């Protein structure tokens, strides 16, 4: 069970309260976690990653285990503590204006 924390605006958009849990079979990667999130919440397509290129949107960041994973390749396995559900995968709106 992978735990994912979305930023408040995306929780509101998807009508989610609290964390989201997704099951991933096989390697737990950023791409597969986000694929699972978008599969369950189609309204989030395009809000975290560009719909056309699949690239992370510029003002969205990915953190886990006190590390910034935003620029890790999307198919790199996430930390073991994320894969085991011990730590959440954080999707964060960058600290920039607003």
């Amino acid at each position, binding site marked *: 069970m992978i735990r994912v924390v979305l*930023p408040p*605006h995306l929780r509101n*958009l998807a009508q989610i309260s609290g964390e989201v849990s997704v099951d991933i079979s096989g390697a737990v990667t950023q791409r597969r976690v986000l694929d699972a999130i978008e599969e369950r919440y189609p*309204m989030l397509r*395009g809000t975290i990653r560009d719909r056309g290129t699949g690239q992370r949107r510029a003002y*969205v960041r990915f953190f886990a285990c006190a590390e910034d994973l935003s620029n890790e390749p999307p198919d790199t396995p996430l930390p073991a503590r994320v894969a085991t559900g011990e730590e959440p995968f954080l999707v964060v*709106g960058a600290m*920039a*204006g607003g």
Partner: protein
Amino acid sequence: MSRVRLLVGTRKGAFTLTADGTRRDWQVSGPHFGGWEIYHINGSPADPDRLYASQSSSWFGQVIQRSDDGGQSWQPVGNDFTYTGEVGEHLWYDGTPRPWEFKRIWHLEPSRTDPDTVYAGAEDAALYRSTDGGQKWKELTALRTHESGPRWQPGAGGMCLHTIILDPVDPDRIFVAISAAGAFRTDDGGATWQPINRGLRSAQIPDEDAEVGHCVHRLAMHPSRPEVLFMQKHWDVMRSDDAGGSWREISGDLPTDFGFPIIVHAHEPDTVYVVPITSDSEHYVPDGKLRVYRSRSGGDEWQPLTTGLPQANCYVNVLRDAMAIDTLEDCGIYFGTTGGQVYGSADGGDSWAPIVRDLPAVLSVEAQVLP
């Protein structure tokens, strides 16, 4: 008695303002989609309970929301705005080529007859249409790929398609305006487009009379006279009597002819409203006075409307989509400011009163008359 509902988009959410036909007491609902930029909300003329909203943010991109119950509840619909085919390049601010890149939807224009058909104007400039209530969007590609496209450039607010007028008589005719490319018209449902900028003069471009490159801020039309168009350009208020074939200036005695919105009275096709702004480098009303100007002669002669509007120490702007009319017998006029006020007049502009004073900066106002 009929009711009026205003659909207000702001920098930080959407609001609906409702009143009965007297338009004296208003109920404010919102913010909806709090914290998001709502560039535009618009209702279907064929079903006023069908609303579409453009919700966007720099962080999370574009979302389109739809309501089927007049804004009581909303559901996100399609947000896949893809440029069809070769993306191509336009001019950047520095005059160098730059690929088209989707940023947001500025304007939503529902069909006059079908609640499920709606047009969307994008930045970078493109026109999209949905025929399934906003679930899927298809680009009307011939506009963006017009041979002049590589010469289009952004205005200060971006290279946005901000105005869409669906001809009330000819279903194949659509007018659009793009900053800073100009106005365009299709007579074949979007298969081909022609620039309609003859007569516009813009000192900010190398050839003042160029076919494209003009910063058109807004177009307006009265549905009874679809060949007559009014335009607020970056500078200059203009009029065309031949569906954009040619334009003449009607700024007349306005204190300044820079501005953003322009609208036409619901029942008087020659009564036109603008809000003069100091200049392109000072985006606030002149002399600290918020004045709407009305012409009852189709332009050239303008009268300031000030009763109930602040006449000292006011330095707000009124953006291009932030002015609307209702269609009650005594035509209501409404506008929102960058200072967060929404003002209304229930007597065609003779007198005004604030409906709400302290919203986030207002991006758009639409008015609906409800049974």
